[in-house]
């Protein structure tokens, strides 16, 4: 689905992405982690051809991004920017969703049907002006307009930044459902709780280099990697690490409850 082969990218004389290689398969849910300035957003822009690599090769849905037009890649790759206002340009939510569809479809009935589907999925009022909505609602409109195009790969640049808990749950619920249906997800996030709850795999960038590519559970418990990328683990894995070896497999609240129960039961059974 997405493949980086020894990709480097320079801004001026500064090397922003340094010899990065990885592959994301269809249906994967990968999180891209790293401190500010690590190159996460640049890497995302390399994925859909907004930026072209200076060396190496990026292949997405079978297209080499160096030769394919970004607008053509956009038929298969959806990109949700951190700031939804840059994506919104129409005066109603319905028109906004239709705007993206008009570029990839020609069947009017299909456009109408997908727009209705998105309005229902996000519980949005099609007549509302997107610019009069809250930040979280605008983010949902931007996401709806991307999902209407049914992308095979969805790139999310900090999708939950600036959202309240309810909005965050709504957006991540929809993304998670899409992933279960087969959409590949690459998500940049600083929120380790969200990463821990939804992503299966984590790519960790530091200073433009890929320092780790492993399951999220392993990354969350690797203090060295987390430290190299200035990351803190989610609360439950952090607590589990501090409680020692008995809790090494604990990752979620449910795991923790089960393990605490098990440890308590063992203590009760143990002779005084």
């Amino acid at each position, binding site marked *: 689905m997405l493949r980086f082969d020894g990709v480097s990218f320079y801004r001026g004389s500064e090397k922003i992405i340094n010899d990065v290689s990885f592959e994301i398969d269809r249906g994967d849910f990968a999180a891209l982690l790293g401190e500010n300035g690590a190159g996460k957003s640049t890497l995302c822009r390399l994925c859909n051809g907004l930026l072209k690599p200076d060396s190496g090769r990026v292949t997405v849905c079978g297209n080499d991004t160096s030769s394919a037009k970004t607008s053509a890649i*956009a038929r298969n790759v959806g990109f949700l920017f951190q*700031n939804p206002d840059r994506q919104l340009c129409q005066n109603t939510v319905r028109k906004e969703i239709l705007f993206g569809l008009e570029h990839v479809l020609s069947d009017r009935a299909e456009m109408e049907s997908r727009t209705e589907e998105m309005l229902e999925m996000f519980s949005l009022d099609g007549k509302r002006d997107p*610019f009069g909505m809250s930040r979280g609602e605008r983010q949902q409109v931007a996401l709806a307009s991307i999902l209407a*195009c049914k992308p095979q790969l969805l790139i999310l640049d900090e999708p939950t930044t600036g959202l309240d808990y309810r909005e965050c749950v709504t957006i991540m619920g929809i993304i998670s459902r899409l992933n279960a249906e087969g959409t590949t997800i690459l998500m940049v996030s600083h929120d380790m709780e969200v990463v821990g709850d939804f992503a299966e795999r984590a790519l960790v960038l530091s200073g433009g280099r890929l320092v780790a590519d492993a399951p999220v559970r392993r990354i969350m418990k690797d203090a060295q990697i987390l430290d190299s990328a200035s990351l803190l683990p989610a609360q439950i894995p952090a607590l589990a690490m501090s409680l020692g070896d008995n809790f090494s497999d604990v990752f979620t609240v449910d795991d923790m409850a089960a393990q605490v129960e098990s440890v308590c039961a063992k203590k009760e059974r143990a002779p005084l």
Partner: protein
Amino acid sequence: MSGFLSYMNGDSILHRLNPLTKLLMSAALCASCFLTHRHSVVIGVIVFNLCMSYSAGGLKRSLAMSVSFIKLALLLFVLQVFFVREGNIILTLPLNIYITDKGALFSSLFSLRLVAATMPLAIMLSVTRMSDISNVLAQKLRIPYKYTFALTTAIRFIPIFSEEMAGIAEAQTARGVEFDTKNFFKKIRLLLPLCVPLLISSVRKIEGSAISAELRGFNLRTRECGYKTYRFGLRDAGALVLTAAIIAAAVLI
């Protein structure tokens, strides 16, 4: 274009000149391009601009800026050269289109003037902090600070809006809008709807800045306020003499 207007750190003579001297110099250099009818003088002004830029450590930036202006100047030259019908014909083309010697001279002078007259202000802005410009206009020229601040803020916002527009275009390309098309007219047609998000984000930014300034006592400021003072020195006198010489040369040569 955004990089051309942003402040360039340095400690050159140009950096140390009084901001008002720099404003006068750039206005005078600009005026001298229109006072002369000789190509050599206008070319001289361009060379002088590049020398100033070199002394301030910004030659690379000025050359890049010149290339952008030259492209625009060439376009204007092509548009102008076919409309002047006076003079001796030096090139005849089909459909009764021809180029005259007067047309070629006028258009080339016009194009050179465009390059020479726009450079001084851009160079001056790149070696002067916006806050210094607004302060000196308020202190020395007694223009109300409210207006000088509005002027400098408008200039300061140009690169911000330019970046914002680039970001919006990028976001729309990622949605499948063909900004990467080579068809110029199609590109213009696609750009029009983007004016909406740009306008909205601009209004939001300006409103945010205005509220922020208000909350920090913007309206309480008087001409006497201001931390820095801007005295004229010997180097300012020298710069003004040089400017006067350039104007005299433009008029007399």
